[in-house]
């Protein structure tokens, strides 16, 4: 067994689960703000007012009987994503990328029929994927077409960018790439690859899968060293804006880069995981503390993003 001593972790400034829960989530996240992030529909509406774009909303299924309209609506569509509004960790998200006569093709290239999707909608409404098991609504969104520069790194899934935002300051970021192991999903604990991104430049730092450092993507075989995210400053500012929209002091902002629409907000997370630190090879604590010690917080998202790029750049 291989262990790391708590002293070394402290030196690295690694944020741990207990401290995250007690010192950051409990202290900086108001309970009343949680519905904004725990409900994707509310998130969409809240951030829209602050000029943060999200994938186009096609349909909201609130009642069992509305499911019949789903088939009519889906008739003319090539690709779309069905999501439970209160789902967490990507649970219950079904992505349809194409059609083959009566069958729909999932992102994993499995073929499913319309009754399968209707059953899925029923499950979502019953609250199978919702956080507290409460009844839920299903939202159908336009399929995100990932920008080709990033899409080639990911296997069968849309790569997304997770940015941890603390009191409106983007403090750490990573690119999440789907793999065969993760079944097209971008969740690190399911086997997705996490690539740490330099806050200052949007360039990749290093990469991990299952918490182990890697240099090549396990499926595509591409080197993960020289990835660079375009329009980086704009993305950080967008993430920063979500703070005004929700009031959450500590959150994870998940963004995608759409081929035509540019950066879009996928979802917000009030309890972002800790694996981002491993992808970056750096602990979060020094950055969080430097913001906590600021005498006056910057007022605009622009200023905060600039401050973060200056202060937290890897050099």
């Amino acid at each position, binding site marked *: 067994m291989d*262990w790391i001593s708590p002293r070394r972790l402290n030196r690295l400034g690694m944020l741990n689960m207990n*401290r995250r829960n007690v010192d950051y989530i409990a202290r900086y996240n108001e309970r009343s703000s949680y519905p904004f992030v725990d409900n994707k529909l509310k998130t969409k509406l809240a951030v829209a007012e602050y000029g943060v774009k999200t994938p186009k909303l096609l349909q909201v299924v609130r009642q069992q009987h509305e499911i019949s309209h789903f088939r009519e609506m889906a008739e003319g569509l090539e690709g779309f994503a069905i999501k439970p509004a209160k789902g967490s960790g990507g649970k219950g998200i079904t992505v349809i990328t194409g059609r083959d006569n009566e069958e729909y093709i999932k992102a994993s290239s499995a073929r499913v029929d319309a009754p399968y999707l209707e059953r899925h909608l029923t499950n979502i409404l019953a609250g199978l994927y919702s956080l507290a098991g409460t009844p839920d609504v299903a939202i159908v969104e336009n399929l995100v077409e990932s920008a080709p520069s990033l899409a080639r790194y990911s296997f069968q899934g849309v790569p997304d960018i997770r940015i941890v935002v603390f009191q409106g300051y983007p403090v750490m970021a990573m690119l999440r790439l789907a793999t065969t192991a993760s079944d097209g999903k971008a969740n690190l604990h399911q086997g997705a690859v996490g690539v740490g991104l330099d806050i200052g430049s949007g360039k990749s730092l290093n990469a991990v899968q299952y918490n*182990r450092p890697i240099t090549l993507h396990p499926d595509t075989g591409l080197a993960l060293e020289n990835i660079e995210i375009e329009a980086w400053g704009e993305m950080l500012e967008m993430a920063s804006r979500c703070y005004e929209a929700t009031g959450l002091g500590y959150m994870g902002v998940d963004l995608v880069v759409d081929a035509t629409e540019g950066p879009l907000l996928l979802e917000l997370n009030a309890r972002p995981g800790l694996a981002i630190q491993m992808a970056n090879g750096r602990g979060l604590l020094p950055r969080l503390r430097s913001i906590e010690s600021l005498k006056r917080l910057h007022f605009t998202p622009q200023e905060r993003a600039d401050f973060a790029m200056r202060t937290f750049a890897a050099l």
Partner: protein
Amino acid sequence: MTNRSRLPFYIAVLLLIATGISLAIWRHIELGIPWLTGEQRPVWMVEARVDFDATNESVLASLKVPGQPPGFRLLSEQAASPGYGFSIIEKSGNRRAEWTKRSVSGPQTLYFKAQFVPDTTAKSVLPITTPETRRVFWEEPQATAVREILERARERSSTPESMTRELIRLMQPDTRTQNTTLLVAEENYLELLVDMLNHSGIPARTADGLKLEDARRRQSLMTFLQIYDGQQWLTFDPQSAEQGVPENLLLWREGSASLLDVVGGDNSEVSFSMLRQTVPALQLATMQFESTGLGFLSFYELPIEEQSMFRMLLLLPLGALVVAFMRIVIGVRTSGTFMPVLIAVAFVQTTLVPGLIAFLAVVAIGLLMRGYLSSLNLLLVSRISALIILVIFITAGLSIIGYQMGFNTGMTVTFFPMVIIAWTIERMSILWEEEGGREVLVQGTGSLFVAICAYLLMSAPLAGHLTFNFPELHLAILGLILLMGQYTGYKLSELKRFTPMKVYD
């Protein structure tokens, strides 16, 4: 943004823990509730036997019995004497056992039995008013002799105690002078001592004590001298002048009260037999709080049915403590927060191995059936409801099969909370679909591991004993759980998880 000081919180937690522990210690000292199970305490069973010859008239036999002898606590008393009326009469600190009968003849035997617990903290009752000295009139030439002896004793002493010691020494045969020989005859020695002390202004009296030795019969009382030093009665050995009540000496009679009065009988005499018994300390304690009135603080006042329920309920905080520790400090992943506690409670009733087998069997069969249910495309609520009914069928089936095969364990499956099992099956199957079998295995074994740890703690005899007899200890447990809620350090599992960070250090 709540950045309040945590000092009040820590003080509150400290108070909780301190209150819990000090209450427990107080009750241990005050009521003698033992810390450990199976602790044994010695108890002396003393039997006084009164013999007399009745003279064919109404009989009243009155025996002095001790109420609170120094160094002992009276636990129980009873009389055995067929055909006699019996009662204990208490008059100004003087307790007497009285037997009465209308008309009797021939030799009679009466028994009085009492149990005494050695208790070093028990003090004898202090006299309310200062005892007065009795003036004694001496005739010459005794008067001169007494005066001279007292004079000599007074010269060599400074306090009533030392005066008494000196006097006893002067009265011993080997130190006797002419004066003392004049006074002392063997039969009046003690009486004389008491008179002389009273004469010199020190209140004095005699007391009868019983030397406690295991399995002795036909013992008689030994007489001791007691003087009053202004605060309490002090006991002296009248021969050796040794001060204090020797260990294992039970003072049966103190003061001027007579030991035995028999009206309507001749040749009366008292003899004693005794036996050293051991009684579980807990039983002793429960017998005592009935008498001390502190019983309202314990669960023993409740009906037995409620008691056994509380025995179970009071174990739950221990399980919660284990779960909190395992999740917060160790970082074991479990499915559901308190499912492990509920499984552990079920284990306590089924015992571990049969419970484990039954639980795994029910969950495994349930998972298979859930697979079929999900293909039926049902709404969640009806699926869970169906699952609960299925779980009841499974447990009923297992019970019947187990019973037919001659295992009692089948019956105990029913202790598992059905709803919990149904939810477990549901969550596990969702987890299986979404995260794969590996995650199910991790969380399932995590839950079972925590449940087994909680079970081991909860089923320990000491845990059951302490939680039931010292319910205030739960305040300390509460304090510990609150403290753990403030733990912001690394979990043990995180030290493993973050190991790859070594590269960047």
